[in-house]
């Protein structure tokens, strides 16, 4: 079957999708978006957390057909999503790239394992904070945590430690002991750059 939906603000389609395929498989294997990770594929670890119409979900538990005509934001689109939100443009990640920016777009050289590919100005506040706080070790849990933490700060710009723990309790990390992940969320909140269109709880 063919599935058509918006990913990070751009319409995408996948052909020959088998009925049992998950959104995660379609993103990773059919759309070239491997940022959402495949650590358990049973909804236990949060590594594949994406936003579906704004709601954080485990992409491994969403059948691909369920996202027909809907909006998905993955870690690859998190920076743009945050930028749009800060500019008050839209809250679904569906607004895409403004024409002016698209015309100025240029590929950045990336070195697969060793180099910086992205100017730091191109990161969302939560991504910056994760790097600065040392919250990334092996990095496999990072994309899911970033999507979940970004959504938390959108809801609650100044969360308590218990709020952070509750919001991230569905995301397993095996490397860090979580302390630096807490640091990162605290840092992003303190930098106060997560001002959003959505009002906090």
């Amino acid at each position, binding site marked *: 079957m063919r599935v058509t939906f918006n990913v990070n603000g751009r319409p995408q389609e996948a052909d020959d999708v*088998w009925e049992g*395929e998950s959104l995660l498989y379609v993103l*990773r*294997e059919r759309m*070239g*978006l*491997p*940022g959402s*990770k*495949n*650590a*358990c*594929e*049973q909804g*236990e*670890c949060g590594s594949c957390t994406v936003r579906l119409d704004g709601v954080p979900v485990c992409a491994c538990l969403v059948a691909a057909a369920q996202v027909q005509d809907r909006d998905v934001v993955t*870690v*690859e689109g998190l*920076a743009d999503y945050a930028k749009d939100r800060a500019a008050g443009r839209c809250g679904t990640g569906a607004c895409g790239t403004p024409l002016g920016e698209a015309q100025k777009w240029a590929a950045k050289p*990336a*070195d*697969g*394992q*060793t*180099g*910086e*590919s*992205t100017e*730091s100005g191109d*990161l969302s506040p939560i*991504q910056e904070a*994760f*790097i600065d706080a*040392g919250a*990334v*070790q*092996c*990095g*496999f*849990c*990072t*994309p899911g945590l*970033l999507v979940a933490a970004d959504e938390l700060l959108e809801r*609650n710009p100044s*969360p308590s430690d*218990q709020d952070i*723990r*509750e919001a991230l*309790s*569905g*995301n*397993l*990390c*095996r*490397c*860090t*002991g*979580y*302390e*630096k992940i807490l640091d990162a969320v605290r840092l992003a909140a303190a930098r106060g750059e997560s001002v959003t269109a959505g009002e906090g709880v």
Partner: protein
Amino acid sequence: MGVTRNPTNITQGSKTKGGLGESTLRPDGTLKVTGEFAYSSDMWHEDMLWGFTLRSPHAHAKILSIDTGEALATSGVYAIMTHDDLPAFTKYGLEYKDTPVLADGVVRYHGEPIAIIAADHPETARRAAAKIKVEFELLPLVIDEETALADGAPILHPNRDDHHAGHVTHPNIVHRQPIIRGDANEAAQRADIVISGEYEVGMQDQAFLGPESGLAVPAEDGGVDLYIATQWLHSDLGQLGPVLGLPEDKIRMTLSGVGGAFGGREDLSMQAHACLLALRTGKPVKIVYNRFESFFGHVHRHPAKLWYEHGVTSEGKITHMKCRIVLDGGAYASASPAVVGNASSLAVGPYVIDDVEIEAVALYTNNPPCGAMRGFGAVQACFAYEAQMDKLAAALDMDAVEFRQLNAMSQGTIMPTGQPVDSPAPVAELLRRVKALPMPPEQQWLAGDSAGRSTDVRALPGGLSNTTHGEGVVRGVGYAVGIKNVGFSEGFDDYSTARVRLEVINGEPVAMVHTAMAEVGQGGVTVHAQIARTELGVAQVTIHPADTQVGSAGSTSASRQTYVTGGAVKNSCEAVREKVLELGRARFGSYHPAWATAELLLEGGKVVTDGGEVLADLVDVIEGETIDLELEWRHRPTQAFDLVTGQGHGHVQYSFCAHRAVVEVDTELGLVKVIELAAAQDVGKALNPLSVVGQIQGGTTQGLGLAVMEEIIVDKNAKVRNPSFTDYLIPTILDTPTIPVDVLELADEHAPYGLRGIGEAPTLSSTPAVVAAIRAATGLALKRVPVRPEHLTGT
């Protein structure tokens, strides 16, 4: 071409930023937060097939027949291979070559690979696997020491030819290591109190988040390119060559992104399978285990039974120690022999005990194979000896920390192996520091929550289950300290290799560091760049992807990689620097006498004297030249342990960590919440303080997991009952407390920069500290980890 400047115009050198001792950020950090970092499961190749493994549903059975006909006829299936289709040598192994690539007529554990399938979609491969018909004849099981050593027990590996086959007392014993020093029986006469105990450690899993995966691409020369997550490229290569029937230069391995390892990627998993299918089909083959399969795809931490006896005088001095440690190695040897060496040589803990009688053995059983996991034999011992320390202190009516300090080892202490500890061993000091940290506030759940309620149930045992508002909740505090070796021991040639290139690019000096080190998340790539900046005084460092085009770096395990490959990078940088200075003397030596007379350094892109005088710009010295050196580097050699007495200088370095755990227990429901888990560790020299602390916190959390939740449950039929993250629980952010870390830096003069390997030590003492705190809260004996609610409620 850079602009050539006359050296006389240069007047100021500047320190290079991003060097050693700074918390520089990961070079791969940006890629990892944007989703661009390519992990082994993210590999993709046009026209690639998906591999899948058919695994045994039984723990011990003869394979009578395998019928692949119907499966092969499935549309989209390209190849199916069983043992009979293997092209060359059919076994592999880290220490003994005893593990079949595909089951050789017998399966010896639940989940052993029987057949591999390549198909055009992972689901096609899975469905085809389900159509393979295998006929089994069940065989009697070996599940523990009793059944392994019983008269007439099935011998799992009857024709052993490994280097320990000759001295073990039974063929189901993988390896046995006694250590005898002094006379424990005679010393026991001097004891006023003798305490003995029996302890048990369950089977822990590394549970790294990135599942086993990789991509094998057949090459035109008949070889294969493998993109893989592993801990040691060259170890994989050495095992793959014979299995594929290819010379090693035809197997080109590149490290892809590794999603954690913790010991679980030391053994081969799908490496051989992917290569075999790729060579068979002529197409690229990707294999990605799902989480269920991952629990069968790698070895686990050895479950252990431990018997300990200590004596003390009434003054509190330990007189002697006797212990026996039995490790369940499962169906194949994996790293069991080395784990036995570690468990026995570290069984005494960080204490001074002159008279000891130690024995450690690992068994062959039909349980899942066990091998390397962070802490490697020392974890099991630490849980037992620290429980003993608390018991001894209680029997003497002494403070548990003071008792440990009274018996703590220090620099100069002789280990039971006869090896003197020849670098700082601040055991008493680490305990003092961790004890001196402020205590978390009592009844912290009364802080209130953001909704204005006076009690935040999330801070209580049971959390949002809302099972208590403080009723029945008891606090306990516990301490523990441990000792871990750093590096590969027992005479192993534990070297590493680093290639360092220095050249001018766009008018700037740029260093390139190329090693085969597996970056598994530990931050080695960060440290390599820091070393190059410090040693060569350049701002720009490129880290070349790890592959087998450069010499071996050894394994990213045993807390060794920063020590050994860090040492190799330092060594190669120093050699490059010598070449630079030679060039400089040839080009500019006549300008200034200091070129010949002074100690010269590279700093801030310049050649400077140790007095800080600038002699030349690095760019001008190396312009037009490329200095490119690849050198091996070795730490001090070690010795094997004597197989009878256990004597021998077997370890390179020791590493120490102490913990204080504060827990709150809901005694009605048996629920434990760890409130704080403070650590103090000596790291010798913190090359990157941020990474050091992160590493200690991560290791501490894995120890907490073993203390209260993590266990692979293997039933009486030797079958794994909980191969999922639903049932094998690792700590979430709700289970993990705040982890204050106190880092001590007492240099080890024998190590590069004085550093000390740090990765494993925090995983040792964390577990017994948490359990000691639960004992303190409940008054229960608790001889087994993980501690479960039913152990606390007596149900």
